[in-house]
């Protein structure tokens, strides 16, 4: 078993808001992240897959193919978009770093041939990231 990690980047806007709460409660819990006009980040995505090395190709997974999957499933949907307003899974889920990691896992799960999705790591900033391993 070997692990292979591919990075991708996208830039998006978002804000944190729970519609079930009052404005005061949203401000108290989410602070400046609750600014309804939104703010943005340069996100770095790291997708780690696990598998056996193919004896003929020497690959766990074709990197070009993995790059194309990340582009199609994630980057083309998230990049230069407002996550709350333009990405369907965040209509009823707050686009926190944790929820973005889970959403990307759900987008990629079972889409990567010959390898098992091991981890989705999403950096919101260099000093903050979330990991999701598919755990319930």
């Amino acid at each position, binding site marked *: 078993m070997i*692990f292979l*990690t591919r990075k991708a980047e996208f830039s998006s806007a978002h804000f*944190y808001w*729970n519609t*079930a*709460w009052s404005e005061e409660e949203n401000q108290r*819990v*989410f*602070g400046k992240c609750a600014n309804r006009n939104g703010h943005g980040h340069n996100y770095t995505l790291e997708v*780690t897959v696990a598998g056996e090395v193919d004896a003929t190709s020497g690959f766990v997974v074709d990197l070009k193919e993995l790059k194309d999957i990340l582009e199609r499933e994630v980057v083309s949907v998230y990049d230069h978009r407002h996550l709350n307003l333009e990405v369907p899974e965040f209509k009823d*889920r*707050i*686009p*926190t*770093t*944790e*929820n973005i*990691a*889970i959403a990307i896992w759900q987008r990629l799960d079972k889409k990567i041939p010959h390898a098992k999705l*091991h*981890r989705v790591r999403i950096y919101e900033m*260099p*000093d*903050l*990231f*979330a*990991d*999701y*391993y598919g*755990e*319930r």
Partner: protein
Amino acid sequence: MKAHLSRRYHFSASHRLHTETYDEAQNRAVFGKCNNPYGHGHNYTVQVTVSGQVDPATGMVCNLADLDGFARTNLLDRFDHTNLNTLECFRDKVSTTENLSIEIYRIFQSFTAAHLEGVHVEETSNNSFDYAGSATPAGGTI
């Protein structure tokens, strides 16, 4: 759903690797330039990983402001711009980054809003240490 959240903090401190157990020559032989008598310093990076169920109401494992506040009070205010050897926790221990990692893990065990997975401490860009208590550290990349 269970997710992991990692946050990186930075502080600068001086230290000297030295133990009274060894004589001067042994200290020099074991610790090399890290034993220079007047100490030296590093910009440390501490990466704290916590885990838990993502709260459906907030989308969070824990509120980052709470983790940052805890780190400010219990890590940065205590360690930043200090000489580690003068701190109570290193009175009887060499201020290696191994021992520093264990101390920082011990500190973050008191953060109760999420489960502490482990700490990763970078002393320089070329050396780093992981401590996860009795569990095996998850490691920096996997």
